[in-house]
């Protein structure tokens, strides 16, 4: 128990340190690197008066350390300031777009895990046999298709061959939950397919390795059936490294969703981000970047904790 606690504490410290570095990077990117942030936001045509007033509005006239601390405090209290392009609080903009991205990522993750595990188990039953070879080749190709290209190809396929075209329709989850899911399904599939290939490939080789290990031989010698060996030994041991891989995939999924929603015309965070970039809305951008990175940091933290629960060896390290 003490070991557990110690492990979680170390990880928590690591988590906080990472968060601080990430927040500093984000702050630095938008407030230090551009030089004179206010004139960058307003562009070359701005008058000195406009720049001065924006500088005051954003608090850019204060010392750098104070700016950083203010901003950091703001991010944790949810007060990210006023968007310069839309003139509404940044947090409300994000909250409005969140369901799309969140739903898409969750759906994609469910699809990835739901498809890749059965495929890998099936494939590793008889390595190098027909099913395995077919899966591996499809996997390779799927791995190589960028999600947005896949989206375009799928749209092409569905619209021309099946006459089904639901692109661009979006319902809020509170209005029409079925429609909400329906509108997110195809994009989620597009994000998921390359990741399925990735997890499949990882799981397959990992299961094959585990099956060849000494303790599986011991279990066989103990008279266990193949099925209970798979459930009780092989899968738990593959999970040890699978958790880490899935956490990395999840952060990839977030990145991928930002692009795919562009193709499907969904009002998610990705489009907000693009609007922010084209209108040089730095308060909006810094808030979004930080929150997206925060999500990743949390995902990795949770993966570490899960790994600790699964693998007793971690605790003693």
């Amino acid at each position, binding site marked *: 128990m003490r070991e557990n606690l110690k492990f979680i504490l170390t990880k928590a410290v690591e988590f906080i340190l990472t968060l601080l570095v990430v927040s500093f990077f984000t702050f630095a990117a938008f407030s230090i690197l551009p030089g004179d942030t206010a004139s960058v936001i307003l562009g070359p045509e701005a008058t000195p008066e406009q720049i001065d007033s924006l500088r005051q509005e954003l608090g850019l006239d204060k010392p750098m350390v104070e700016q950083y601390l203010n901003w950091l405090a703001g991010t944790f209290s949810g007060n990210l300031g006023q968007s310069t392009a839309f003139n509404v609080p940044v947090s409300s903009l994000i909250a409005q777009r969140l369901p799309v991205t969140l739903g898409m990522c969750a759906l994609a993750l469910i699809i990835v895990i739901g498809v890749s595990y059965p495929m890998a188990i099936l494939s590793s039953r008889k390595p190098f046999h027909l099913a395995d070879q077919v899966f591996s080749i499809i996997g390779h190709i799927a791995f190589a298709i960028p999600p947005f290209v896949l989206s375009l190809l799928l749209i092409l396929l569905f619209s021309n061959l099946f006459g089904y075209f639901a692109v661009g329709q979006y319902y809020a989850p509170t209005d029409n939950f079925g429609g909400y899911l329906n509108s997110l399904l195809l994009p989620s599939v597009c994000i998921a397919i390359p990741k399925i290939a990735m997890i499949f490939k990882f799981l397959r080789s990992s299961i094959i390795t585990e099956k060849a*290990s*000494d*303790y599986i*031989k*011991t*279990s*066989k*010698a*103990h*008279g*266990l*059936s193949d099925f*209970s060996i798979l459930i*009780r*030994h092989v899968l*738990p*041991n593959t999970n*040890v490294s699978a958790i880490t891989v899935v956490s990395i995939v999840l952060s990839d999924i977030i990145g991928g969703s930002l692009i795919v929603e562009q193709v499907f015309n969904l009002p998610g965070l990705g489009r907000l981000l693009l609007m922010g970039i084209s209108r040089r809305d730095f308060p909006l951008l810094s808030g979004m970047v930080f929150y997206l990175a925060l999500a990743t940091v949390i995902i990795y933290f949770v993966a570490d904790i899960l790994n600790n629960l*699964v*693998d*007793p*060896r971690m605790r*003693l390290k």
Partner: protein
Amino acid sequence: MNKSSSKSVNIIEIKDFSLCFPSKTEGMKPVLNKLNLSIKRGSIFGVTGNSGCGKTMTAMSIASLLPKEASIQGGDILFNGQSLLSMDPHSRRLLLGDKIGVIFQEPMSALDPLMRIEAALGEVLISHGVKDKNEIRSKIMEMLKVVGFKNPDAILNRYPHQLSGGQRQRILIAGAALLKPSLLICDEPTSALDTVTTISILELLRSMSISMGITMLFISHDLNVVGCFCDYVAVMKDGAIIEKGITSRVLRSPQTPYTLSLLRKSRLDNVLSNDFFLKPNYSETPLLEVSNMSSGYDGRLFSRQKHANVIHDISFKMYPKEVLGVIGGSGCGKTTLAKTICGLLTPTAGTMLLNDVIIGVVFQDPASCLNPSHNILWHLLEPLKAKKIKLSKLETRELLIATMKEVNLKPSYLLRYPHQLSGGQRQRVAIAMCLILKPKLIIADEPFSSLDASSAANVLSLLSSINHKYNTAILLISHNLHIVSKVASRVMVMDSGTIVESGQLSEVFASPSSQAAKDLLEAERKLNSNPNALS
């Protein structure tokens, strides 16, 4: 015994059994060739032979744990008079763990790292239909006591990585014996263990065989282990048995030249020539003076390990020309001592005085002593570069050729890569790398442990000639008491990080005063005796 003796006296009978594996070049490659073998109920039956002779495949055939690719070409295996090959897979599987137990070589990896001991052992019972939780627990506790755990409660909740190699092997034995099998197949169960632990495991197995009436099939390449443990022994070569009989008979007066050659290679003293090493003069100034030194992995800024002293309060002196042996069980701090002397670790307390001596080091593992990316030439030039010794091209050339000759390697080997050399050759290159700097002290950390007897003998005579020619002192760290007793003039015994005993070789070996030294010598004595010496 009486219950099933009606069937037959032999628990296992293998008749004309042949086994093949598909191979890339030859189509089907035979692994077992018309094998005939019968094992008497209640006996301990050893099978030995070189690697690749088919001894493990024999065991796996009985245990029905053959790899999928294996194809049985003919013959039959009878267990209690019942043909195993004609049984359906399900009931064959249920025989395992119930009537037939198996233990393997690698205790470190043979337990699922994610499972507590209780769950790992309970699984055996559950898969054979025992459902009651209390019954499971009491059976496990009982068996843990049998295999020598004084406090089974504490073990139940442990994970495998919290146990030592010997303890894990005991857990595996417990798992295999839980349902009181009539046959226990042991596949090299002691190869990964040190001598003292080996003896204790063998004693455990023997007592279980007697008290529970378990027949044992014991596979080992180590003739010493087979000789001190088994009642009967069969020698295998190329998938067939070439000699079998009562152990003492086979090993004392072998009938076939193959067995004789195996015997000759098995014992280092059989191949050791009469090399001798120089006697030191204890009035000279010592090369190395260590006083009250402690060392280990300190918590410095640039170190991965946590602060922990592995060796404490070490004091000794080494004189020119001297061969000093260091012996001790695994984990006693021998290697830490070597690393500290050669400067990889800094002492955390005490002093170490090296009187301006160039040190050479030879490590244990010939597989990793050379850098696989570079050729031998590079390896020999690297020490010169590191010590900034500038030589002309001609001088370098002469030095290289002389050094290669010294270690009995052809100069043409200079252009080879490590993977093109054998283990013994690599070890000699490692010695050449020391030699090229003309060291006054060579630290040899278990240099023989991964070599077979004849390569070890070659390396040993090489060390002896260096000792003569250059008056080089040698600090020989080894768990092999034989070698140490042949070469060292003084010996130090280490246990849990300290020197528990030191003195002239003859004194320590004749009348050890510390418990650690007594244990080591006792284990060595038992290993070289006949089966009855095991209590």
